[in-house]
């Protein structure tokens, strides 16, 4: 119960600040929190990345193994994205099979990677129609202080950029770098009436979990959109979010390149 009151107070504070044109942590409306990326920390994985976005923390590990292709694309590798919102990461996450929120998160991250054609799947065919590389992208939440989705998307692409295909382990020649051609960046905005805030914190989310995620590729194409939450979105606001998301995505991509090229 006391949680409800606390949440009510937070909500009022966020809204009153917003009326003054400010965010509670002083950021600009289109500004992400501090981003920290570390790759390669999980030696047993083919690739891995730890991302800290403000206080939100997530680890992504990549495992690869040979397997069967989809019948309709017999000469391409397969990507499977899975997210575990383990109860360690938030008082509201529960143990058990993935719920609608973790499934949505995994699927939106998946669409960003897939539709930007970030991974060159045609280079992951071992024997057409029979054997291709399967890539498991496992998102493991550690601390959900808001916007786990964008943090997960960043960690996923960084982990992929950091991945070595373990060919030798399976007697399939020498290991090689996973071919990554694009860096899709998802930008999630919290919608509050006719305003919006990019990369919301958990405290900001207390005004209502109403978000719009726009994923952008390196050529400024939109590759995925997800409206999430029980709200009505006006067309002008949508247009504005689109513009801002494209701009914000560029900055994040630069940050990824800066931190990841160093790390990889």
């Amino acid at each position, binding site marked *: 119960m006391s949680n409800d009151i606390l949440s009510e107070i937070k909500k009022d504070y966020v809204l009153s600040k917003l009326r003054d044109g400010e965010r509670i942590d002083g950021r600009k409306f289109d500004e992400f929190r501090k981003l920290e990326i570390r790759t390669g920390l999980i030696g047993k994985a083919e690739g891995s990345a730890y991302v800290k976005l403000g206080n939100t923390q997530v680890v992504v590990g990549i495992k690869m193994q040979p397997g069967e292709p989809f019948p309709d694309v017999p000469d391409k590798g397969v990507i499977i994205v899975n997210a575990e919102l383990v109860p360690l990461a938030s008082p509201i996450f529960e143990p058990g099979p993935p719920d609608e929120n973790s499934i949505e998160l995994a699927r939106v991250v998946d669409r960003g990677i897939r539709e930007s054609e970030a991974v060159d799947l045609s280079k992951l065919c071992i024997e057409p129609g029979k054997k291709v590389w399967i890539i498991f992208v496992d998102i493991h939440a550690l601390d959900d202080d808001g916007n786990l989705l964008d943090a997960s998307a960043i960690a996923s692409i960084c982990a992929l950029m950091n991945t070595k295909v373990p060919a030798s382990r399976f007697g399939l020649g020498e290991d090689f770098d996973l071919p990554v051609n694009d860096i899709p960046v998802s930008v999630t905005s919290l919608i509050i009436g006719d305003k919006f805030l990019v990369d919301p914190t958990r405290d900001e989310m207390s005004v209502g979990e109403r978000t719009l995620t726009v994923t952008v590729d390196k050529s400024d194409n*939109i*590759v995925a959109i997800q409206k999430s939450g029980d709200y*009505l*979105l006006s067309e002008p606001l949508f247009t504005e979010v689109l513009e801002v998301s494209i701009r914000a995505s560029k900055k994040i991509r630069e940050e990824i390149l800066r931190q990841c090229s160093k790390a990889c």
Partner: protein
Amino acid sequence: MSRPEKFIIDGKRLDGRTPDQLRPIKIEVDYLKRADGSCYLEMGKNRVVAAVYGPREVHPRHLQDPTKAIIRYRYNMAPFSVEERKRPGPDRRSIEISKVSKEAFEAVIMKELFPRSAIDIFVEVLQADAGSRTACINAASVALVDAGIPMKGILTSVAVAKVDGVLVLDPMKEEDNYGEADIPFAFLIRGGKIESIALLQMDGKMTKEEIKEAINLAKKGAMEIYQMQREAIMKKFIEEGENE
């Protein structure tokens, strides 16, 4: 099914439609006896049935909300609805569709009128073509009206795809599978006018200009579907009137 070489020949799509043309739609209101509201809907080869139960008691008590009705939405595919038999039960795709569809309806149902109760929306896909989620939302909207659930307006849903660089309305299977992008929309229509977007997803590749263009195309299609939803509902009320 394999990728067609061209999607549009002489301005016509593979099934003969123009880019801004809907597939044939058929709507039947009050299709089921046991449900409080129901609708059968065909949209191309999609065959879907929607049922609404409620407002009714929420059974696992701790799920009740003392301030408003909870909305539940279950999108489910019959095992025989697709080419390869689907194992019964919800998969990840169905769960995601159910979530975003539920949220769209949460935004338009006047749920504050029914505290502690539940409004259940069930949609069964008997045959799935491209756009089954949009067909289901259109059917669910009509079923909600049939059940007498107060709403801010009606939800009308349609998708736009991009094929061969051209935007097309209400994509069929080939366009959906092999097209360059797909955006399902659901709009709130009130007083005969589109007011806002209740559902929006997208995957594929589009510039922001194309997305704006897609909205306009979707709005055109939604207005046409809305007319058909309206007529189906009217027809039922007229028939009921006649039967009295």
